[in-house]
């Protein structure tokens, strides 16, 4: 691993972000990445965060038209309430703060504690849970669907609304709409290695893959013999469309598509995989309004990919297209 030590990876990365992005206010001590102009805009503040190891999520999405602040935890470990409190205080300009929380027990509990404390400090805080991963059944018998690729859609679209000056309840409602309109499915071709453990989080023999994986190096729901990109796309897109069907809404409405790499899969392969995803969606009569292909919600050095689709109405498309200027997502300015 390209590190100094397992203990310092997160702090080292924040030092690097500070050096590479003078336009951001990176508080290495308190572990918060903030927009420099977060407090001056009179906008709703958008705060997200989670374990590190999913870069560019979330720190790479801080900036104009997206997040106001991000709180990176240790690798695969949700951040602690102090970080979110500091972020909330740093971005609140009186319009209130939205916490965007991926649905993992740790993230939920820590953001919940932070929200309670922030409200004691007099801030208005709303929370939205992202839970788009169809590989997990959302029932009393699980911790619920995980938050994965849809986080990018939620952060981008809520960020655009906040940038436009939408009030907290509207930003939160849009964020919830995006989440409810999004579903994801992920596949691993290799396990990942956390700096602390130093060896793969699970054993995946050559020639096998894991279907229905999360983004924390956990194994998936099922192990199979290696499949072609086309076969994998069939399974993933099928699962996502089935999941979307359960949410209601028009089966042939336009979608935003994210073909996301888990970290170690070459972009060459991701584009080839996207060709299959696009082919299947065309065959199913689902128009792809916008597509994004790349490594956005990763799992360290895991090989594999995920597909996220979001049914987008005119308003969501407009907000998706709105200018954004962050380290990892940038257009329109």
């Amino acid at each position, binding site marked *: 691993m390209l590190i100094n030590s397992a203990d310092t990876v997160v702090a080292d990365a924040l030092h690097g972000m500070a050096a590479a992005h003078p336009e951001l206010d990176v508080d290495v001590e308190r572990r918060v990445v903030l927009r420099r102009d977060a407090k001056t805009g009179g906008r709703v503040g958008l705060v997200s965060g989670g374990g590190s190891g999913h870069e560019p999520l979330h720190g790479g999405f801080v900036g104009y038209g997206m997040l106001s602040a991000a709180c990176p935890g240790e690798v695969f470990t949700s951040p602690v309430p102090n970080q979110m409190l500091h972020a909330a205080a740093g971005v609140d300009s009186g319009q209130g703060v939205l916490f965007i929380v991926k649905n993992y027990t740790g993230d939920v509990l820590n953001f919940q504690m932070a929200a309670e404390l922030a409200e004691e400090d007099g801030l208005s805080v709303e929370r939205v849970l992202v839970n788009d991963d169809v590989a997990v059944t959302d029932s009393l018998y699980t*911790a619920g669907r*995980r938050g994965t690729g849809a986080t990018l859609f939620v952060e981008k679209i809520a960020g655009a609304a906040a940038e436009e000056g939408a009030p907290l309840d509207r930003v939160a409602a849009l964020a919830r709409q995006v989440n409810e309109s999004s579903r994801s499915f992920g596949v691993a071709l290799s396990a990942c290695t956390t700096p602390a453990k130093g060896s793969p989080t699970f054993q995946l023999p050559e020639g096998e893959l894991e279907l229905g994986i999360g983004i924390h190096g956990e194994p998936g729901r099922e192990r199979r013999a290696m499949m072609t990109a086309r076969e994998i796309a069939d399974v993933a897109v099928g699962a996502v469309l089935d999941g979307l069907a359960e949410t209601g809404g028009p089966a042939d409405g336009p979608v935003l598509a994210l073909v996301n790499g888990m970290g170690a899969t070459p972009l060459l392969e991701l584009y080839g995989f996207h060709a299959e995803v696009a082919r299947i969606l065309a065959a199913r009569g689902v128009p792809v309004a916008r597509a994004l292909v790349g490594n956005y919600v990763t799992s360290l050095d895991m090989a594999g990919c995920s597909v996220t689709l979001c049914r987008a109405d005119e308003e969501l498309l407009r907000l998706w297209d709105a200018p954004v200027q962050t380290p990892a997502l940038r257009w329109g300015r």
Partner: protein
Amino acid sequence: MRDAEFFRDWLEAAAAAVEREADRLTELDSPIGDADHGTNLLRGFTAVRTALAGADPSTAPGALLQLAGRTLISTVGGASGPLYGTLLRRTGKELGEDPEVSDTALHRALEAGVGAVAQLGGAAPGDKTMLDALTPGVAALGTSYRAARDAAEAGALATVPILARKGRASYLGERSIGHQDPGATSSALLLTALADTAEGTS
């Protein structure tokens, strides 16, 4: 009666156990989790040690546990940080400001602490979580410290065949069966540290 020294000893013993077992806890968290439970608790209990060392010598048992709980919350993260933090904070609150507490009072306080964990996390015994060690372990405190340790250890072992319904392991469905829950294992360490401390001093 148990004085502040006893609680410091307990937390120190817990920290030592976590240090010793951190790699094993992380290893248990690999097949059904995200391979960080040992690192998480090691970071937290190292901070607890520092916090206790800095705390006024006159700090009462309840305040010590609350301090430890707050420290875990602000340093661990993940699921186990808020849960263990809540366990200790709530137990500490129940103990009040008395400089010495009875075994009965500690038992009651821990029951309240475990209840707070169940409420915060929404889990129940049988879900393959820390509650599978905490609940029987604390219940057995009514009998003896030794019984509490044995019950907690048995509870942790008994998570192996369980299908997880809470926490990350629940994502695996059937594949969670056959693995021991890391949180239940660390809970058994905490109650073992308590029992060892009580036996060594009573």
